[in-house]
């Protein structure tokens, strides 16, 4: 079959720095072609070039065998090429339906046909099993629901080519299933799909062909059939990979964090739990279970009632600063809106949380510079210019910068919400090791994650949340995927073995 969209010898440079070196790539109608590689390998850049968002520095694009140049993304869309970005591309103040039809509004005479748009929006969302009201502003939606809106927007435009940059990074297993079903449906209709994800099991499930990029270079393209997840991972990183999860270290006996009867109005009811020194405590649950809200309540980012004790001392409620001073910090799941200043330099982002450690009156720029050097090497952040803006880092490297920023505050207790969202497998391993090392050094870590394997592989004990309250607790060998899901869905609330 002939390719619908093809790239030949594509390179791309940002200023003097080249990030893609002669990538060849083709997409055939009715196939799912997966693009995989480490953070910063150039996946998003390649996708943006194919989607008309970026122009290649060299090389050419062929559409239906004829050379094309897209002046902008609009032209690509007109040619039937649609892209869902890694970072959201939604207007936060507008409603779900307004976003879905942005730039393609349905008209009735001179007026907007709101009714038709609302109905179609509802249909599209229903296909994705998403029950968000088309009239809610995006601002009020959870991160996964925003992703669903983004996907619905693409579905609504009957794309011939659909480019998806890590669409499942913010979704839970169940939502991912729904999305993958939709992809299979589109594929059956002959849509060509370019897909990337750091979750290699997804790739194995849906891809027909796999292309691996490493450091901006094309390494291989081969059928997914017979390309094992392990082999994919090793081809991506270019070396052998050992066990993903480090061995668990037993926690000490003393309790460092005690949460009692914490209630976040409308979100979380009466949550109580404890955390011990050197413990890795997992928090699992479906999206909307209230995990993020609970954590934000604990560290004072959301108005909450109840008690939070650190080392036996009650901390002042509703004050992020007080929590931080007590050694309690929270790493957000929403790195773009809440985690990083995308228009600021790496240094300014890195030191923002712990700025008081860099001088009381004047900021010590030398020390900041050293901190950046250390962060780059400790967290293996791939930067091509120390002066670049945080927003120009690849998604995974932004996550590493965020982690480095949080750790710079030298917390005693770290709450990490989705620690490896958008992170490649090699780096995941580094981060898991890092979390284990923190625990071994006597720090305590709470890992909130939608990836069950992650919670199971890391935590000594898992708290399961469902619909705004704590639905159960599991420890040791009782932590299994099945047990977690049953509690999360409220099947097994009272009977389960809890620690």
């Amino acid at each position, binding site marked *: 079959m002939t390719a619908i969209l093809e790239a030949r010898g594509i390179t791309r440079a940002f200023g003097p720095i080249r990030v893609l070196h002669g990538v060849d790539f083709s997409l055939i109608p009715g196939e799912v072609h997966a693009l995989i590689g480490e953070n910063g390998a150039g996946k998003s850049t390649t996708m943006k070039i194919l989607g008309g968002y970026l122009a290649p520095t060299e090389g050419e694009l062929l559409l239906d065998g004829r050379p094309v140049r897209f002046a902008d993304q609009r032209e690509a869309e007109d040619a039937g090429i649609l892209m869902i970005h890694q970072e959201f591309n939604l207007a936060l103040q507008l409603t779900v339906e307004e976003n879905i039809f942005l730039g393609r509004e349905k008209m009735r005479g001179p007026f907007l046909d709101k009714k038709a748009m609302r109905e179609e929006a509802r249909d599209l969302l229903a296909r994705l099993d998403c029950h968000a009201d088309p009239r809610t502003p995006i601002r009020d939606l959870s991160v996964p629901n925003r992703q669903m809106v983004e996907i619905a927007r693409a579905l609504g435009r009957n794309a011939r080519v659909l480019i998806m940059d890590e669409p499942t990074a913010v979704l839970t297993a169940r939502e991912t299933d729904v999305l993958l079903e939709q992809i299979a449906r589109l594929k059956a209709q002959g849509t060509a799909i370019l897909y990337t994800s750091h979750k290699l099991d997804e790739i194995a499930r849906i891809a027909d062909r796999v292309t691996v990029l490493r450091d901006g270079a094309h390494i291989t393209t081969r059928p997914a059939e017979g390309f094992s997840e392990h082999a994919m991972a090793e081809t991506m990183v270019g070396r052998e990979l050992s066990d993903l999860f480090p061995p668990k270290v037993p926690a000490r006996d003393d309790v460092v964090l005690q949460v009692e009867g914490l209630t976040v109005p409308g979100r979380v009811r009466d949550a109580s739990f404890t955390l011990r020194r050197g413990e890795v405590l997992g928090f699992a649950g479906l999206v909307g279970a209230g995990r993020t809200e609970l954590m934000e309540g604990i560290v004072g980012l959301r108005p909450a009632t109840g008690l939070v004790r650190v080392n036996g001392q009650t901390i002042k409620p509703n004050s992020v600063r007080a929590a931080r001073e007590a050694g309690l910090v929270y790493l957000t799941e929403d790195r773009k809106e809440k985690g990083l200043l995308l228009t600021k330099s790496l240094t300014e982002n890195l030191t*923002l949380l712990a700025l008081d450690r860099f001088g009381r009156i004047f900021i010590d720029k030398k020390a900041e510079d050293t901190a950046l050097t250390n962060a780059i090497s400790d967290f293996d952040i791939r930067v091509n210019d120390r002066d670049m803006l945080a927003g120009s880092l690849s998604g995974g490297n932004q996550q590493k910068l965020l982690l480095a920023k949080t750790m710079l505050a030298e917390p005693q207790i770290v709450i990490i919400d989705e620690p490896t969202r958008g992170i490649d497998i090699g780096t995941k391993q580094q981060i898991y090791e890092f979390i284990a090392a923190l625990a071994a050094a006597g720090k305590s870590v709470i890992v909130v994650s939608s990836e069950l394997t992650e919670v199971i592989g890391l935590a000594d004990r898992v708290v399961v949340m469902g619909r705004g309250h704590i639905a159960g607790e599991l420890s040791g060998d009782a932590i299994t995927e099945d047990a977690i899901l049953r509690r999360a869905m409220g099947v097994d609330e009272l009977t389960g073995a809890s620690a």
Partner: protein
Amino acid sequence: MTDTTAAPQATSRRRSLPLHVLGPVLALIALIVLGAMLNSNFLSYANVTNVLARSAFIGIIAVGMTFVITGGGIDLSVGSMAAFIAGVMIMAMNALIPTLGIGVPLVLAGMGVALLTGLAAGMLNGFLIAKVRIEAFIVTLGAMGVYRSLTTWLADGGTLSLDFDARTFYRPVYYDGILGIAWPIIVFALVAILGELAMRKTPFGRHCASLGANEQVAKYSAVKVDRVRMGTYVLLGVLVGVATIMYVPRLGSASGSTGVLWELEAIAAVIIGGTLLKGGFGRVWGTVIGVLILSLIDNILNLASIVSPYLNGTIQGVIVILAVVLQRQGKSAE
């Protein structure tokens, strides 16, 4: 900034230098050259002192405005606030003459009143914006009307004048100086230097920029968002007080038309200087250059008679718009 890292940094700097960093500087130099060519008195000591001393009021206020704008805010009330502070200060000084007599204590008391009034006005703006969470534009638009009308009311529709002897005693604060440099210039320079240091080197400056760039991120980074925002308005209020202290001895009076349009000149100077109107990035030295550009245009039009001085506003307006265009090109070149 200390440049300790290698080559790539240098190139990126150089790339972004020409347009939005060098632009205002080049414009200022061009104006100076132009002025010198048009009129031989332009570079004379008297004219330079005159220009700088007159820039000082707007300049001191604009430095404060830089922080407010960098933090994602705006303050439209500063011109009326200056008039109000001047009025209160004059009334307080006149009232205190019987107790304190004419002398240094009286002037110090007047200065104290001006600073406190500025502080209070800034706190009120800051409180309504940061704590009550009303939009800065609305709050300060309201405050602009309130102070303007209060001043007119205090002056009973006319002019509030400082007692003649007190005025004579106070006058040197505007007209004298040390080593031939007038006091307003010295104060402006000090405010500008401290402002530049605060913006670039202190946590407060960093926090302002983070607040303007993304308030959520700042909040999640344990920045005391409300306090920083409040701080920018308080700082501005106090600086309006300082500017008024330098202004009152010049004329010795205040009326409902004192400080009219100062807010717009201050905001214009900030924008010309390269601070982003939507917040997140601010440059105090740029603001200083912006202020100088605006007052040089005024001065040149007055000295040379090619273009009518009435067109001053037109030229300043065009320059503000040009500055923003330059900024945008600087951005997209990155």
